[in-house]
């Protein structure tokens, strides 16, 4: 009887299908979804899609677009810094009036105000559009429903809006690049008075207005996404998926969403005050001020107030960037090493501790802004305490791969590279977190080197690890491994070649955000080092082109995914069909019986989360 009944249902190919049929539970999804009217045509499938997997791909591809723009900008200002005497006339067709060509000598120079615009836009684009939306937008969307066992996000409609607000933010920012007065040029932190007075510099006029508009849209996008991520993790987990069975990716995305939800509104409050100062004549941030010998009407504002509001977001923001990368790396390392993650609970508590501490350290960005030195002590202590959960995580990643049967795929290499970058960049954070050392180091290339390694390169490495690892889930094909390895080694060596020397520049006192250094005798002997950094930056960018070609080429010609679970991983996304339908599982949603890291348990290579516990077997996650 039983076998006869099974034969009449859908054909069963895998043991996992049997398990889902037997233990999974029915949420009557497919009954409502015959014909799938939400994905009936091109527009509802590819453009205004409400499917979290399509939205993830939209975030990723938009993120790649912005990463290329942001990267190209850095090349232009690196050329200026490395070769201030060389002609940039060949850039005139692209940059137009921002390159002034001397009619007699043919020498093309980059306009100094556009140099500042490039630096500002590079920071804004990479921090917000690439490493926030491109990273957490992509992987939270892709993995949260798949790994907690949900059909989709709690509100697919808000999820779609989240992407389109991001798109709108990008469109507005892109438009600002073409203004005659140029995009905003006062630094990505947008400190007043440069950001508050439209007459302060050319970028402070229309460029700043569009910057504010763009980032307000962006915050709306982040909040809509974050509300969905939190609700989905807490409310839509499948049967048996308690919090201690969640993969570390989900823990990371969950805490990231909480940080975003609590900190981005504070940034918006700063924006509101700024907009009032700019347009309605209020004096929240503007003190008695003279522009061109003319006294302005503003009285009694405090520019430091903006810095407090900005960094109350700004510091959690760096964890919004790094936590998803940490989650991805934990999962990729465990799967690649064929070993359970070492210290799962310690990892979760570290994520929570980092999340909590990130809210009480913001003023370490303001040690030199005139905050009370006694208050600084408080921030120094909590900043240095962050080293503790960070070190716990590093220790656990290393012990996870220690003695493992490591498969060095591109994803695994990038995950290991992440750990390397995180250690290098994290150590210099201990220097900078100290308010006494910060007197020497603040606003120098030491700071630039620190944050680029720890949250720029490291977060990119986490993102690359995730893209290589979950590419088959997104596109049904693998990326090319040889190109992946060229990409990895080029980027690892190149990124160190760029940022390692910058530490020396910074210790020697070379200030950041300067247009050129060759007029300063003190810094003249660094010109060779600056040339070296620029050449390394060009090579690293070339390596990223290898990635971009690999990414888009593999969508059509990559090696096809032929099995459901190519890596032998335990998490739920590998129990879905190869071509994942809307709703993720064609029949029942699988129920979960164990944590996500049963590798090598009882002599078995891996045990999927949907396999029930054997009699007398304990769940290792608890």
């Amino acid at each position, binding site marked *: 009887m039983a076998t006869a009944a099974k034969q009449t249902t859908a054909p069963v190919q895998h043991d996992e299908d049997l398990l889902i049929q037997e233990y999974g*539970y*029915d*949420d*009557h*999804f497919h009954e*409502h*979804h015959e014909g799938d009217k*939400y994905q009936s045509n091109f527009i509802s499938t590819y453009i205004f899609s*409400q499917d979290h997997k399509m939205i993830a791909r939209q975030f990723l591809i938009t993120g790649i677009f912005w990463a290329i723009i942001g990267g190209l900008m850095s090349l232009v200002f690196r050329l200026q810094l490395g070769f201030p005497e060389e002609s940039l006339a060949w850039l005139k067709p692209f940059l137009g009036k921002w390159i002034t060509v001397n009619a007699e000598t043919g020498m093309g120079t980059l306009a100094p105000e556009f140099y500042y615009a490039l630096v500002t836009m590079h920071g804004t684009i990479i921090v917000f559009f690439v490493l926030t939306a491109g990273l957490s937008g992509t992987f939270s969307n892709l993995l949260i429903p798949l790994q907690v066992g*949900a*059909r*989709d*996000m*709690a*509100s*697919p*409609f*808000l999820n779609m809006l989240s992407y389109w607000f991001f798109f709108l933010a990008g469109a507005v920012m892109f438009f600002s690049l073409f203004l005659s007065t140029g995009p905003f040029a006062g630094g990505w932190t947008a400190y007043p008075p440069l950001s508050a007075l439209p007459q302060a510099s050319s970028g402070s006029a229309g460029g700043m207005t569009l910057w504010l508009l763009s980032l307000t849209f962006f915050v709306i996008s982040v*909040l809509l996404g*974050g*509300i*969905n991520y*939190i*609700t*989905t993790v*807490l*409310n*839509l*987990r*499948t*049967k048996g998926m308690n919090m201690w069975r969640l993969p570390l990716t989900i823990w990371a995305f969950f805490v990231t969403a909480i940080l975003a*939800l*609590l*900190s*981005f*509104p*504070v940034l*918006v*409050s*700063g924006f*509101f*005050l700024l907009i*009032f100062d700019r347009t*309605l*004549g*209020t*004096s*929240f941030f503007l003190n008695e001020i003279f522009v061109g010998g003319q006294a302005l*009407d503003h*009285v*009694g*504002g*405090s520019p430091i*107030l903006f810095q*407090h*509001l900005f960094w*109350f977001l700004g510091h959690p923001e760096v964890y919004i960037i790094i936590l998803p990368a940490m989650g991805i790396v934990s999962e990729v390392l465990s799967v690649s090493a064929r070993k359970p993650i070492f210290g799962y609970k310690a990892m979760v508590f570290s994520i929570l501790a980092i999340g909590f501490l990130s809210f009480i350290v913001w003023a370490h960005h303001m040690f030199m802004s005139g905050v009370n030195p006694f208050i600084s002590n408080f921030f120094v202590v909590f900043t240095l305490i962050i080293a503790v959960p960070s070190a716990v995580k590093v220790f656990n990643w290393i012990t996870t791969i220690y003695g493992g049967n490591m498969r060095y795929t591109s994803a695994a290499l990038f995950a290991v590279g992440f750990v390397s970058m995180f250690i290098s960049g994290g150590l210099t954070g201990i220097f900078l977190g100290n308010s006494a050392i910060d007197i020497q180091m603040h606003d120098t290339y030491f700071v630039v080197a620190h944050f680029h390694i720890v949250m720029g390169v490291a977060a990119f490495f986490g993102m690359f690890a995730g893209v290589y690892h979950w590419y088959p889930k997104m596109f049904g094909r693998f990326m090319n491994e040889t190109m992946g390895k060229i990409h990895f080694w080029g980027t690892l060596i190149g990124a160190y070649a760029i940022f390692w020397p910058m530490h020396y520049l910074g210790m020697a006192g070379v200030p950041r955000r300067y247009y050129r250094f060759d007029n300063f005798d003190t810094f003249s002997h660094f010109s060779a080092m600056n040339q070296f950094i620029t050449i390394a930056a060009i090579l690293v960018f070339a390596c990223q082109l290898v990635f971009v070609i690999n990414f888009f080429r593999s969508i059509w010609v990559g090696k096809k995914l032929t099995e459901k679970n190519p890596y032998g991983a335990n998490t739920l996304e590998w129990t879905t069909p190869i071509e994942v339908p809307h*709703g993720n599982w064609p029949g029942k949603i699988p129920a979960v019986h164990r944590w996500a890291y049963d590798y090598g348990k009882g002599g078995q290579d891996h045990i999927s989360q949907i396999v029930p516990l054997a009699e007398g077997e304990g769940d290792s996650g608890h």
Partner: protein
Amino acid sequence: MNAAVNFEPQVEGRSRIHPHQFALWVACASIVMFFSALTSAYIVRQGAGNWLEFRLPDLFYINTVVILVSSVTLQASYLNFKKGRKEAYRGLLLATFMLGIAFLVLQYMAWQSMAGIGVMLDGNPSGSFIYLISGVHAAHVLGGVAALVMAIIHAFSLPYKATQRRKVRFALVLTYWHFVGFLWLYLLGFFTVTAA
């Protein structure tokens, strides 16, 4: 049919709160952070001195009564909706809407009276903060009024039926409306305490 209904969890013990209701609470937490940032900025700026002190308009206090009564009428409307008293449900919903509009109008009059005693938006930050914070709060109330309009359209155009789906929708409006009411209570309490 909305796509979202298909994703409701069917697992026992986890469906005590509807995901959309929960999402709204999360959104409220986010709005709370927004206003606490503004009020913190207020405290920091006040501590720096050069702070003009003035008497808050009486209308702010009268208006508090208006918004609290509107919370009561909406709650009553929701109870009547669940109990099947159609007329009371519709009437109280309309009353809430009127009170919401009244709140916005009275806030506008309160700003006018502030301007009347010389406290201008672009003057000393003490006044600018009151205008900005109460203004942004009014914008949130306006969002609530928009939600009430949707609820009224549902109440008058759809056949009366207290389905689970409509209960959830109504509960969302109710939660948000209570939220903006209590938010005003907090803000006015904050203004009063810091001015004293």
